[in-house]
């Protein structure tokens, strides 16, 4: 066990920070970052930013060399993710391309799919959305109703997705659709979003802009070549993808930055020495640090080639509790964060309203810990 970063890792972090300083515009912190990475401005910015990151060899360094990466240690992926998160995730939705979508296609995609998509992702020029959740299927993903019916060599898709982040501006959808009668007869399709019959309707909500969309599929024709893996065998692929997603966002890394902002404001208001605030803030810092270390446990396992473990679920709930405590603190002690106050604090609050729901609810994580770590018996 060794908590120190190696010299190489420290140098890499410095390199990433330097690239961010050079590549982000002067109004990044004031204009782009407060809007959140699902906003139209950030999504469009990511189309300029990610290719530049790619040119510097910083977008997919953790990918295997055969796919254009440098087979870099997964620790580098997390160092990069931490620094991106610290600055407000200028990769926009493309963080998920490089974190899990690319690796899923490397493992399960056909050579044609790999040829078509991995290059675009590697060059930072494509936006994807996830067609997972539906009005009647969120955490219970196997309940989804969108159907892909066989028609010749292809499929015809009908159904509806919801909460589909980034879909307004996405180029492709990683779509789950039912292809059989069994509960888990689900297949995955890679669908261009400009395919006739796809309609995206944004709707307002509490969470950050760009995340709440409905996507309607009406007689959408999809070629058989767009299916990933065998028909009706999506479950292993989904599990593989989710194992990346659950620790993919280093939420713990922004806690200190946001507290810096909140405390600077409280100090200006003469409340910096309030013992109640001190006690509350110290606890939040402790939770964020717990989340950081428990996430590092998972990264370390990944770096050593271990498969998905329950530690990913443990790190996830630790991080989401820390974020929830911080959002609560902001509302109680810096309430103007949702009105006239710092827009970065507002964005953090709005971005984390669904932190315990998205990518597998908090309760689902607890179920998995109860089984995987404690071996508690199933109910009847």
């Amino acid at each position, binding site marked *: 066990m060794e908590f120190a970063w190696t010299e190489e*890792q420290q140098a890499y972090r410095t390199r990433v920070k330097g690239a961010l300083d050079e590549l982000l515009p002067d109004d990044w912190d004031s204009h782009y970052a407060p809007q959140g990475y699902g906003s139209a401005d950030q999504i469009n910015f990511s189309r300029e930013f990610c290719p530049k990151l790619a040119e510097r060899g910083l977008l997919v360094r953790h990918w295997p060399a055969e796919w254009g990466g440098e087979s870099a240690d997964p620790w580098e992926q997390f160092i990069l993710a931490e620094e991106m998160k610290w600055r407000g995730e200028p990769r926009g939705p493309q963080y998920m391309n490089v974190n899990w979508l690319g690796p899923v296609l490397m493992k399960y995609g056909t050579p044609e799919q790999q040829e078509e998509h991995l290059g675009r992702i590697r060059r930072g020029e494509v936006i994807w959305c996830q067609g997972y959740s539906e009005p009647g299927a969120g955490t219970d993903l196997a309940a989804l109703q969108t159907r892909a019916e066989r028609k010749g060599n292809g499929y015809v898709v009908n159904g509806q997705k919801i909460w589909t982040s980034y879909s307004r501006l996405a180029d492709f959808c990683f779509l789950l659709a039912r292809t059989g009668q069994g509960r888990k007869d689900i297949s995955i399709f890679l669908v261009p979003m400009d395919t006739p019959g796809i309609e995206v309707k944004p709707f307002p909500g509490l969470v950050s802009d760009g995340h709440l969309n409905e996507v309607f599929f009406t007689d959408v024709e999809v070629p058989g070549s767009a299916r990933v893996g065998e028909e009706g065998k999506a479950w292993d692929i989904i599990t593989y993808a989710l194992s990346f997603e659950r620790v993919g966002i280093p939420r713990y890394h922004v806690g200190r930055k946001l507290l810096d902002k909140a405390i600077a404001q409280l100090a200006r208001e003469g409340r*910096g020495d309030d013992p109640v605030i001190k006690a509350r803030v*110290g606890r939040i*810092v402790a939770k964020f640090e717990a989340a950081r*270390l428990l996430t590092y446990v998972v990264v370390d396992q990944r770096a050593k080639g271990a498969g998905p473990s329950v530690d990913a679920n443990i790190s996830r709930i630790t991080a989401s509790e820390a974020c929830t405590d911080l959002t609560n603190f902001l509302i109680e002690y810096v309430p103007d964060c949702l009105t006239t106050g710092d827009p970065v604090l507002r964005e953090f609050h709005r971005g984390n309203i669904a932190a315990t729901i998205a990518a597998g609810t908090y309760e689902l994580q607890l*179920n998995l810990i109860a089984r995987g770590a404690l071996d508690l*018996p199933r109910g009847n």
Partner: protein
Amino acid sequence: MDMELTGEQRLLVEAVEALGSRWQAMPPGHERDYAHYEANLQGALAEGGFLRAGLDMGMLEAALVAIEVSRLPVVTSVGASALVAAVLTGDVPDGPLAIVGGDWRKAQRMLPVATHALALHGERALLLDLAGVAVAPVASVYAYPYGRFAAEPDWSAATDIGDAATLRQWARVAIACEAAGAAESAVAVTVAHVKERFAFGRAIGSYQAVQHRLAQCHQIARAMRFLALHAAWSGEATAADIAATYAQDHVNKLAFDLHQFSGGMGVTCEYQLHFFSYRLRALQGELGGADGAASGVYDRLWGAAA
């Protein structure tokens, strides 16, 4: 960054585990005690050189020893010895130690069995030889022995071993380590119970309402462990405050849930939970508790801004 134990660290932990296996259950005659200081284990740890792990290997290794020993139902002064004394005295007395502070008239943890006290005395840290110092045992349901000085000790006879801040820092690391070990065992005792205890025709551990809270308790114990290890490794006061904050802040949750799911058995002395849960309770309020440690975090990180 490597979150797994090295081969050497693993051997160390396995050796402590093997040494402690004799005390996985309470020694005969002590099964229904509130607390039992185990002099033989303290002696074996000293004799085996485990309490000197911090001096011979590193403070992370000392923390691993402290956590592992704290998983046992019997008590030693492993945190004070392996962590606090190692840093402040550069040596580790063989006998058990007490960390004392605050009002000398109040009960102090480990005092009736300790040979020396590591004392917070104003801005200084003192090592006080307790030979000849009158100490009266204090009865308590806390799972450590408690005692108090019969009269104010002669502090002038004590040895100055450094500044109080350093003692406080490492005492917080010791609290975090002992809490982590106790928390792990408290969760394990309760998980075993809910698998065997049936209610309404089902093991109570099969109810989701129980599972979710135990999963949270497991997560807490795991976080306590890594924060404690990090605090020992880093040697930084902020990390020590963070580890103590997290540990002390989560004792209420652990004590409530684990006793709740242990039901009536959990409030008896026939069942092992109290050896761990009331050790956690004892640690919860030390050195200002979670509020004190959390304020320390804040002051170190934002004192200038405030």
